[in-house]
């Protein structure tokens, strides 16, 4: 037993070193195009870069946590609104995605005539590049020339100024977002449901379980890992889903539908001509990042999501 040739790091290195060669380009990319920019963003959030028009590309100063203190004191109402909006936007969307996706998947998973046609049509919104369809949707929500109001008008309902009221603006956002994403969720759930062994249902129906209790006792538990996975991914994605809000409401009215990511973009690149408030933009990015990490860590810690990754 003195030898132990295969137990040392040196042995593993000798055998596995090509992995580092394969990973090298990716590591470089990640370092220079992800890690460094992330670190740089964090640094900018600690400076006065662009705040109040003081800084410029050439001169800015380290000011410690001043920006953070500002966000938690004087700027608290804005920060709080962004937190609330980001969570409302992400959680609300994901709940809708999951409910609608599950419901449609359950219906689609039956033996039903025209299944393929239904599935293909339902998939269409997902197949269109989101940026394009969001632009079209943003036109459709228009007050004067929007299709939605046009349809309401033809059935005798007065036009609604969708984007000028907080409630209707959110409604417009959620409807658009559901349209964009429900196809994917439906199809993922159908795919998972098809992997459930048929004899489970046969056994259950012999035991006298009704359709409903079969759904809750077999389908749902079987789907649980998928629901958690796509739910978390959907939440993280929507939390930072830029285009719907940027293109439809621009965060308005006021900042009542503004989320971190859009506010950050606006602060940096929003108004042409005005001095970009880079440090404020960076500040909101960092807060956004911290929230995302916290949520991910909690979900991963409470579930067994990483199993596939670290096999």
């Amino acid at each position, binding site marked *: *037993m*003195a*030898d*132990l*040739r*295969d*137990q040392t790091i040196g*042995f593993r290195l000798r*055998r596995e070193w090509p992995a580092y060669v394969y990973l090298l380009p990716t590591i470089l990319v990640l370092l220079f195009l992800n890690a460094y920019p992330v670190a740089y963003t964090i640094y900018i959030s600690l400076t006065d870069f662009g705040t109040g028009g003081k800084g410029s590309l050439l001169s800015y100063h380290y000011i410690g946590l001043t920006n953070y203190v500002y966000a938690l004191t004087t700027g608290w109402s804005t920060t709080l609104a962004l937190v609330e909006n980001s969570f409302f936007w992400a959680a609300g969307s994901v709940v809708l995605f999951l409910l609608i996706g599950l419901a449609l998947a359950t219906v689609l998973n039956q033996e039903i005539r025209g299944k393929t046609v239904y599935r293909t049509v339902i998939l269409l919104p997902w197949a269109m590049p989101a940026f394009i369809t969001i632009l079209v949707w943003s036109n459709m929500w228009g007050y004067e020339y929007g299709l939605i109001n046009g349809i309401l008008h033809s059935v005798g309902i007065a036009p609604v100024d969708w984007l000028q009221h907080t409630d209707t603006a959110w409604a417009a956002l959620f409807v658009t977002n559901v349209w964009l994403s429900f196809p994917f969720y439906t199809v993922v759930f159908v795919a998972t449901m098809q992997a459930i062994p048929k004899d489970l249902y046969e056994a259950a129906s012999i035991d006298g379980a009704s359709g409903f209790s079969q759904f809750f006792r077999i389908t749902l538990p079987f789907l649980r890992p998928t629901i958690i996975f796509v739910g978390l991914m959907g939440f993280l994605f929507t939390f930072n889903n830029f285009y719907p809000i940027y293109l439809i409401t621009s965060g308005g009215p006021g900042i009542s539908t503004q989320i971190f990511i859009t506010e950050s973009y606006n602060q940096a690149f929003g108004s042409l001509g005005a001095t970009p408030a880079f440090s404020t933009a960076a500040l909101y990015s960092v807060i956004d990042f911290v929230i995302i990490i916290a949520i991910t860590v909690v979900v991963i810690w409470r579930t067994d999501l990483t199993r596939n990754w670290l096999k």
Partner: protein
Amino acid sequence: MTGIRLENVTKRFKTTVAVDDVSLQIPDGEFLVILGASGSGKSTILRLIAGLEVQTSGHVYIGDMLVDDYEPRDRNIAMVFQSYALYPHLTVYNNIAFGLKVRRVEKGEIDRRVKSTAQLLGIDDTLDRRPSELSGGQRQRVALARAIVRDPEAFLLDEPLSNLDAKIRSSARVELKRLHQQLKQTFVFVTHDQSEAMTLGDRLAIVHHGKLLQCDTPEQVLSRPANRYVASFVGSPEMVFLEGNVASTGSGFSFVSGPVVIPIRGESRVGPVTIGLRPWDVAVGRTPQPGSLPGRVTGVERLGPSDHLFVDVHGAGGPPTPTAAVRALVRAYEYDIGDSVWVAFDPDRALFFDAQGERLDSMSVLPRRS
């Protein structure tokens, strides 16, 4: 020439010892079967020879070369995987030719060898097809062809027959044996199926918990198993064991297990001993014979040409006295459940095991005075 030698080879994974201090010498041209239950470490031994795993300690030689630091590709061995591991994206022809192309064998030579190997295995009409279009039997032949075509130092086969239907399996066995006789090369064949091992192997190496328990010819393994585990693992139907004690009885010593009292000779150690009997060495009759014991048939397993009989043996006093369960292989349809029978066994064939399960070479049944 090109035998294979393992010298005190140990392989440890994180928490388990998969191969525990195994030394094994496989002479050139031998068909060695490594036999063990699943998880016994038998496949790991094969993978250590192939170089797919590297041992924790010990040495592996192929021919006279120490290959511890050789990559699989430099060991010039061929392997047939349980799943066959055919390349799904290549045709049968290219699957077989792959190892030659990789070694930059000249094109005409490749073509000649692929075709003659395919012919040898009767798959020359499938060369243009993909593995997914083949039957299980054909895939297995392609896997064999891929190994044979390279003319390697040795063949390593990891349960290559276990994915075949029972019907094809026995003909595949015969064919494999014929192939070995034709090629006269070293085969190391891993299986958990003891009857496969008995029919194929020149020698069997029985592995349990990573340890090599015995390595010997099938006949020897069957008649002189090293210990109780080997005795029960090899042979079908399984060996009958009678747990008992050796006690001194007047003139000498006897083995006592319930109603069974057998005078023995040899080393006279007193204490717990187990006696092992092959079911085909247990004789059953309707009438008492010298030394036979009365019993009752409690179960019959109809195997076709013969029946596997379960008998409760009891003392002369009848059922209330302690009984012992034995089994016997008898002519088909001779007995039924409930029949009263007399049981005797061939004393020379009985095996003795000590409390640790090791076989006691020195002990045997005292021949009956007749």
